[in-house]
């Protein structure tokens, strides 16, 4: 009898708190979005599952002695996001960007979303019950970078309590890029602008592709050392791929290693989706600001492209500016799709890949600024 009572007291039903139940629903919602809606499933499925596991009463899977507690060290020490960044680097082709380097400026302009939402977060302090420190605001702003590992890396350094909400917002909005961007892009461009065809790009030699990651790293070392963990690992992955002499390392970095780390990273991020941290007014603020960041980033990119089109001697279709937010390769595909709608012969995909990968560099630079100036 005593045993039965002890058993009943050890059930989840007996121990559930409302917060845990709610967070579990959030976890199931993420699984639904990942599986049925195809929202960045590689990340949101493990994140959602991690959210469920870490909110199970009694089991303590995210507490000392539990699996997610130990996996989380990979984020806490900054290891997982950097390894993922290395793999992403190995998968990235800088060819289109090197063929048309001025599209880098589009990747710069789109980072305005980061700083605008940082300001927005600070402004939200006016709302009673909301309190964001400068670190919190910076970690929220980085959602506008539209780059998962960068957002997770910055949040883990500046505002680990908000990590769960920030990662979820970042990946969710990246998945929503095909919904968020088009209205903004249409509103800011004329039909004629969207019809602009761009010149075919020159071929980029293998040597240029090998030198570029080293040059990128060097510039980052000279100007902004705080960005070198991110940019360095990205450059390492890219160099492993382009140099052609360490093919087996490159393949492992962009396949098995990134897959293993993705599973661990997702589960660990999910373990930060605890009721305590997530069920706050803050989270609504983060979700709202994330959407704002994406919207402003998109708009900044498009406007910058319109300005550049004015002064450039070769035509620039303003739609590719939207790809500057990164969200590789989704944002580039969106630009391509809108281009085709206005002009069925207008394939913008490769042209949009330039600003797209430039956006990754841009947000790593922005991350470096935030990590360096906010103490």
């Amino acid at each position, binding site marked *: 009898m005593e045993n039965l009572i002890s058993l009943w007291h050890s059930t989840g039903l007996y121990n559930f708190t409302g917060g845990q139940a709610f967070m579990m629903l959030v976890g199931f919602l993420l699984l639904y979005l990942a599986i049925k809606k195809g929202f960045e499933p590689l990340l949101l499925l493990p994140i959602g599952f991690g959210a469920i596991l870490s909110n199970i009463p009694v089991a303590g899977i995210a507490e000392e002695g539990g699996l997610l507690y130990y996996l989380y060290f990979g984020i806490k020490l900054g290891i997982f996001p950097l390894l993922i960044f290395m793999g992403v680097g190995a998968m990235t082709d800088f060819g289109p960007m090197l063929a048309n380097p001025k599209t880098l400026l589009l990747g710069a302009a789109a980072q305005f979303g980061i700083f605008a939402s940082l*300001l927005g977060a600070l402004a939200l302090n006016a709302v009673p019950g909301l309190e964001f420190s400068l670190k919190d605001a910076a970690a929220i702003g980085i959602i506008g970078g539209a780059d998962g590992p960068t957002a997770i890396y910055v949040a883990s350094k500046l505002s680990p309590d908000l990590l769960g909400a920030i990662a979820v917002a970042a990946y969710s909005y990246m998945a929503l890029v095909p919904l968020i961007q088009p209205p903004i892009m249409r509103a800011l461009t004329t039909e004629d602008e969207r019809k602009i065809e761009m010149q075919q790009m020159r071929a980029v*030699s293998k040597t240029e592709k090998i030198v570029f990651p080293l040059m990128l790293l060097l510039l980052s070392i000279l100007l902004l050392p705080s960005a070198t963990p991110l940019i360095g690992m990205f450059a390492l992955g890219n160099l492993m791929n382009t140099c052609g002499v360490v093919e087996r390392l490159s393949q492992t970095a962009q396949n098995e290693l990134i897959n293993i780390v993705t599973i661990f990273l997702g589960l660990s991020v999910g373990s930060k989706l605890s009721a305590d941290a997530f069920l706050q007014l803050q989270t609504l603020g983060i979700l709202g600001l994330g959407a704002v960041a994406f919207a402003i980033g998109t708009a900044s990119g498009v406007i910058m492209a319109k300005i550049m089109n004015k002064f450039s001697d070769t035509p620039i279709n303003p739609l590719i500016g939207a790809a500057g937010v990164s969200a590789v390769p989704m944002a580039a595909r969106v630009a391509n799709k809108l281009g085709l709608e206005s002009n069925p012969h207008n394939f913008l995909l490769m042209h949009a890949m330039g600003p797209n990968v430039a956006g990754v560099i841009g947000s790593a*630079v922005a991350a470096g600024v935030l990590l360096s100036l906010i103490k």
Partner: protein
Amino acid sequence: MAELMSSGIELMFAGMGIVFLFLTMLVFAINLMSSLVQRFFPEAPPTPATPHSAPSNIADKATVAAIIAAVHQYRQKK
């Protein structure tokens, strides 16, 4: 609060400034690098990358082997 906002605004100017500075310098650096490379290390443009060439390679070999064998057989039978 006002102080925090002014820190934020300062951060925005510094941040966007550095982002543009960095990427602008990168534009120049790329242009310089590309012209140097094209001048001193001219190269045939790279053929499309084939990261997973092994399988297709296998398939190719299989194809070739199969053709040879089939034709051989065909001739023998004739």
